[in-house]
């Protein structure tokens, strides 16, 4: 798991238990992220990784975010 992504997660939702964080962790059900948390994470990801969203993305799990970054990251 990229440390930068963990940092973003912790900055946005400091109560997240990262010891149990896996690629299969579900963003809402397991990590308890709210809509606002998720919007902030998307905002920071766009900023830090220089990615652009199309609006067709579907992020259910941490793995979905990682895959998206692998395919789209410019850094």
């Amino acid at each position, binding site marked *: 798991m990229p440390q930068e992504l963990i940092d973003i997660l912790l900055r*946005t939702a400091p109560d997240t238990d990262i010891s149990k964080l896996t690629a299969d962790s579900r963003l809402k059900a397991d990590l308890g992220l709210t*809509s*606002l*948390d*998720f*919007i*902030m994470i*998307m*905002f920071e990801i*766009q900023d830090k990784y220089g990615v652009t*969203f*199309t*609006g*067709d*993305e*579907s*992020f259910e799990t941490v793995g979905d975010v990682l895959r998206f970054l692998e395919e789209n990251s410019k850094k």
Partner: protein
Amino acid sequence: MKHLTMRVLVRSLSLFMHCRCDSMEDLPEEPIIFCCNHYELFGPIAAVISLPVKLKLLINDDILKPMDNMEELLTGIRKAMPRLSEKQIRRLYKIVSPRAERALKQLDPIPMTQNWASVIIEMQKAAEEMEKGNSILIFPECGMPTYSIGAVTEFRQGFAIIGEFYRKRTGKDALFCPTYIDKWAKQIHFGELIPFGRGPAKEECQKVSQKLYHSMMAMAEKYGHVPETYEDEEELEEKVRSVHG
């Protein structure tokens, strides 16, 4: 042709739905974000035709889809014209819905989806529009049950990220304007402007949302009305209690 149709439509709607704007002169000339209550479908239409500024509308994309499933419009007709039979209501709905759909599309709104990643794109577009000099009109209430009595429900928070995008583009603090539409008095009231501060973006979004809610609640208590056509007193009281405590 498009502009002519729009002008005719706006003129017609203005006859019934135009609202006076209270203290408009106190608002700044720069683009701001009008955060408005719904009052069913009255709010969006009345705000568009009554606010005398260049506006870009952000609207739920469900409303822009074919209106065959648009229960809200049917409910609105039922409430506005309680004496009509269900058959007459459905007939009127068939006449009104395609026109309402066309009118909304001609406003060229920014459609808002429920996809979280899309919200980022939509709010960026809104900030771009502000940079071009257009104010934004948005309806960020979470729920619908109290629309018809002029009350307001809590506000969403994520939309306020427009403020962060706007600052990135212009270096300026975005201003959110609580905008209360009083359907029965045909008047639009404005609350004190709320700036998107310089703190962490998440906290600023939460602050803006809470301040908007409190400002709108204060205006709802002051200007909210109970429509005379409301028949179920118990249901009405329950709704008022749920909002006003």
